C-alpha cells in the first residue's frame, strides 16, 4: 500500500490548461473520492496518476517515488474503467489472470490468484465465459476482479458505476466499500455522483473547472461548504440559495422579506450576501424540527409537492425565488396552500454574493 501525493500538478492540451496546479495528499489505505460536474478535470487528474495522460507540470508521487515519466506498468496501480474495458477475446479467467501472465508469474500462482479474486467477487461460476455473455453488473465485477488480482499499491476507479442501473449501483457501492474494508488499500475514485462520493469516501475532493474547491470528510463538506458551489453540489436536493443584503442583524431579501443573520458569520451592514439553507432545515411548523433559540418563521405558498414516501418535498416561493422544503410526516398538501415554515438558522450558511465564498468566521 502507498500514499499518493500531487504537487502543483498541471495538465495542458496545447495552450488550453484543464487542470490548474493541484495539490493533494492521500494517506496510505485512504478511500478518496474526486467528485465534480463533467469537465471539471477529475478524470484527467486520475489518468495522470495512472500514467495514461502526460503530466504538463508538477509532480505525482506514489509511495516515495516520483512517477511523472514512468509508464503505467511501472507504477504498480490498477484501474477500473467506466466501460469496464474487458478484453472481449478472452474469457473471464483469462481477463483476470492477464496482468499476472504479463508479469510472467507461474500458471499455478495465476490460477490461485484468479480463484481467490473470483471467490471474493462471486465470479467462480462465470470464469469460462466471455465478456460478451455477461450482464452489466457481472462485467463490472470482472473489471474489479482484474484490479484486485495484482495486489497493487493504489486502486483507481474511473466512474465505475455510471453504466449500471440504479438498483445495481446501490448494490455495487456496498460491494466496493466492503472490498476496501477487506483489502485496506489506497483507493482513488472518480465520480460525478455526489451520493456515491458521500457514501464511499473517507475524504471527498470536490473539483470544478480544474481547481480543487474543497477537501474534507463527507460530513465536513456537507456541513461546512466553503462556497456556494460545494453547497449546491453536495447534498440532495441542492441547497436553496437566496440573494439578500445585510441590514444590521437582519438579512433583507427581495420583496422585503427579512430573516435574522445566522449565528457564526461575520457580516457588515449593507453587504450583499447569498443565504443558503438546505431543505432539511426548512420545514412546516410541527414537523419534527426542535424548538431552539435560532429559529425563524416564514409563511410561504406551496406550488408543488413531490411525495417520496417517508417524506414529502415541498416547492414554495420565498422572496421571488423557488425554495425546496421537507415535510417529515407527510400529509396531502393542496397546491397553493399557505403554510408557516420554520428555518433552523444555526444550520444555515452565508456566502459572499460576489465570490460565493463562505463568510463563516
Amino acid at each position: 500500500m502507498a500514499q499518493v501525493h500531487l504537487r502543483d500538478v498541471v495538465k495542458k492540451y496545447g495552450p488550453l490548461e484543464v487542470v490548474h496546479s493541484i495539490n493533494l495528499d492521500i494517506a496510505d489505505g485512504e478511500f478518496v473520492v474526486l467528485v465534480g460536474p463533467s469537465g471539471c478535470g477529475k478524470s484527467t487528474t486520475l489518468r495522470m496518476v495512472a500514467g495514461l495522460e502526460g503530466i504538463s507540470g508538477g509532480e505525482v508521487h506514489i509511495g516515495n517515488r516520483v512517477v511523472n515519466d514512468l509508464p503505467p506498468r511501472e507504477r504498480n496501480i490498477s484501474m477500473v474503467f467506466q466501460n469496464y474495458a474487458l478484453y472481449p477475446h478472452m474469457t473471464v479467467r483469462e481477463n483476470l489472470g492477464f496482468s499476472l501472465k504479463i508479469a510472467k508469474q507461474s500458471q499455478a500462482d495465476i490460477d490461485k490468484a484468479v480463484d481467490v479474486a473470483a471467490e471474493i467477487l462471486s465470479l467462480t461460476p462465470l470464469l469460462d465465459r466471455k465478456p460478451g455473455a455477461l450482464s452489466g453488473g457481472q462485467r463490472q465485477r470482472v473489471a474489479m476482479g482484474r484490479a484486485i488480482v495484482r495486489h497493487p499499491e493504489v486502486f483507481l476507479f474511473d466512474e465505475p458505476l455510471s453504466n449500471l442501473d440504479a438498483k445495481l449501483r446501490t448494490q455495487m457501492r456496498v460491494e466496493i466499500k466492503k472490498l476496501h474494508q477487506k483489502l485496506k488499500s489506497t483507493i482513488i475514485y472518480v465520480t460525478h455522483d455526489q451520493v456515491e462520493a458521500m457514501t464511499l469516501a473517507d475524504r471527498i475532493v470536490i473539483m470544478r473547472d480544474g481547481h480543487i474547491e474543497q477537501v474534507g470528510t463527507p460530513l465536513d463538506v456537507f456541513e461546512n461548504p466553503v462556497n456556494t458551489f460545494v453547497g449546491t453540489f453536495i447534498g440532495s436536493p441542492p441547497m436553496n440559495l437566496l440573494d439578500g443584503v445585510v441590514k444590521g442583524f437582519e438579512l433583507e431579501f427581495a420583496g422585503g422579506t427579512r430573516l435574522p443573520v445566522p449565528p457564526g458569520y461575520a457580516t457588515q451592514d449593507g453587504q450583499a450576501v447569498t443565504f443558503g439553507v438546505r431543505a432539511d432545515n426548512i420545514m412546516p411548523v410541527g414537523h419534527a424540527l426542535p424548538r431552539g433559540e435560532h429559529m425563524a418563521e416564514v409563511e410561504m405558498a406551496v406550488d408543488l409537492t413531490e411525495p417520496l414516501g417517508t417524506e414529502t418535498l415541498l416547492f414554495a416561493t420565498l422572496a421571488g425565488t423557488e425554495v425546496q422544503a421537507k415535510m417529515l410526516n407527510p400529509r396531502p398538501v393542496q397546491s397553493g396552500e399557505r403554510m408557516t415554515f420554520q428555518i433552523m438558522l444555526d444550520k444555515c450558511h452565508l456566502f459572499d454574493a460576489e465570490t460565493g465564498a463562505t463568510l463563516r468566521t
Partner: protein
Amino acid sequence: MASNLNHRVRRYSLKGLHFFGLFTAMMVLCVPGLWIVLNSFRPTVEIMAKPPVWIPNELNLDHYRAMFSGIGEGGVPVLTYFANSLVISVTSTVIALLIGMAGGYAFARYKFNFKGGMFVGLMVTRAVPGVALSLPLFILFARVGIIDTHFGLILAYVALNVPFTIWLIDGFFRQVPPELAEAAEIDGCTRWQAFWRVEFPVARAGIASAGIFAFLTSWNEYALASQLTRSTTSKTMPVGLLDFTSEFTLNWGGMCALAVLMIIPALILTFLVQKHLIAGLTFGGVKG
C-alpha cells in the same frame, strides 16, 4: 530519477525512429508516381539520356501538346479515349449504384432464407479473375454483337462493380437505425417515400463513396477492356496506353502524359472520399 530519465530518452528516440520510418515509407509510395509526372514534362531525349540527367534542364508541355493534337508518333486519339472512359465509367457507375442500392437495402433491411449463402455467392462472382471471364465473355459478346461498343463494356463493368457496391451500401444502410424509416412511415410516408426522404439522405455520403470506388474500378480496368474493345469507338484510356508501344520502342514521355491525365480525376475523387471509404469498409466488414 534514473528510470524517469531513461523513459524520457526512450520516448524521444522512438519519436525519431517513427519519423524516419514514416518518411521512408511515404517516399517509396510516392516517388514512382511523381517520377511519372516529372517525366511527362521532360523531352524524350532527356528521359533516355545516358548517363542520366537528374536535375531537369528543361520542362515543357510537348508531350501534352502532341497528345491532344494527335500528331504524336502514331497519332494516339487521346481525347476520344478520354471521352470513352468517361462515358463508360460514369454510366456503369450510376447503374451499379442503383442496383447496389436496391440489393444493399434488401440485405440490410429484410430477413430471408439463405441470406448468408446468397451474400457469399454474390461475393464469389467477384472472385472470378478478369482474364478467366474475358474469354467466354468475348465469345458471348461477339455472338450478341456488342463487342467494341460502349454498351458491352458498360454491361461488364456494372457486373464487376455490383457485388462490391452491394457490400458497401449494405454496411451503410445498417448504420441507419430502422426506427428512422418507421418514424417516417408513421408520419405518413409510404415505404418508398421513407426510403428516399429519410434513409437515403442519411446514408448518402457512404453511397457516394461506394460510387467513387466503382468509378475508379471502371476507370482503371484493363483485362476486360483489352478484350472487349477493338477500335477508337470504344477503347478506354488504360487500353490506349498500349498505343504508345510499338514493336520495339516505347514512347515513355507520351505514355507518362496520358498516365497523368488518367490519374488526375482519380486523385481528386480519392481525396474527396478517403474518409467515407474507410468508414464504409469498416461497417461492411466488422458489423457483418
